[in-house]
């Protein structure tokens, strides 16, 4: 079960956040702890209309499970919550939701594990967030 709260998380001010309640249509849900990586992801996605960074894993999951979510981006490790478990729960909620996982370069084992547990695609960072934006654009269509 999801128990770990993402300390220091915040809404990016560009959409709904926080309580896992209703979100606007075609929302991009970003899950990740308060880290440089998560901030970079939010910055890379600044061109998209509805991006939310929920304040807890529970609300990230609830928002990803909403029919309004266009995709879920797992930006960073989720502290106490294993990403694989989080992925499985998200996949159970929304079978066809595009889920993108950002990972370190060359971490093939993590990429394989993420794919096995329901990620649509694993994107290594660096070199850039261009691939993420491309995938998100596709998901929005």
């Amino acid at each position: 079960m999801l128990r770990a709260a993402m300390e220091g998380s915040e809404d990016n001010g560009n959409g709904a956040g926080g309580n896992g309640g209703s979100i606007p249509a075609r929302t991009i849900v970003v899950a990740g702890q308060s880290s440089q990586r998560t901030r970079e992801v939010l910055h890379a996605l600044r061109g998209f209309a509805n991006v939310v960074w929920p304040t807890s894993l529970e609300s990230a999951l609830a928002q990803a499970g909403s029919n309004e979510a266009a995709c879920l981006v797992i930006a960073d490790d989720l502290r106490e919550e294993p990403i694989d478990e989080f992925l499985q729960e998200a996949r159970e909620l929304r079978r066809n939701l595009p889920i993108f996982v950002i990972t370190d370069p060359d971490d093939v084992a993590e990429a394989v594990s993420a794919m096995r547990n329901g990620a649509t695609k694993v994107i290594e960072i660096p070199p850039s967030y261009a691939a993420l934006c491309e995938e998100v654009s596709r998901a929005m269509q």
Partner: protein
Amino acid sequence: MKELPQTVFVVDDDDAVRNSLRLLLKSAGLQAEVFASAPEFLAKYEAAQPGCLLLDVRMPGMSGLEMQHELNLRGATIPVIFITGHGDIPMAVEAMQHGAFDFLQKPFRDQELLDRVQRALVRDSENRARLRHTDRIRERLASLSPREREVLELVTQGKANKMVAGDLGVSQRTVEIHRAHVMQKMEAGSLAELVRMMMAIS
């Protein structure tokens, strides 16, 4: 029907790797067949043969990923474990997106490989059991008359006999008779079971 024994197929262009994998698999009591190239394997492989496949990514001629694509085109369900000394994330993602069971980087511990092979063999058994189950359902389905098929489709949509009768323009009694035949031919003990069968083949 007697099940064939499971075989671990190894496709790798490196003689030393092939031989060491064969010895390792044999030491674990597993039956192994090795191939030096993708075309050699594809020429001999029969989908009825249960097992799993250890597949090198980089090989001259047809690569492991190309061979996986060919197996997918053939509708093969054999679990594929990629092994490579030069793996990267895009390669692993592509392999997994196309249905690879696993992707293992060299060097790996013997036990790590054997564990994954065992999991792949379990997966293959499950896949084959599921296929046998759906094949049986399809056989039963094929034994239904066109009218029974219509009744089946409507009752599994949750329609009561009276509604089915209205939709088909027949009496309720006729629907009841067709429905009884459907349940008997499909070997379904309940409507819920019948719905599950239809979901299994959908």
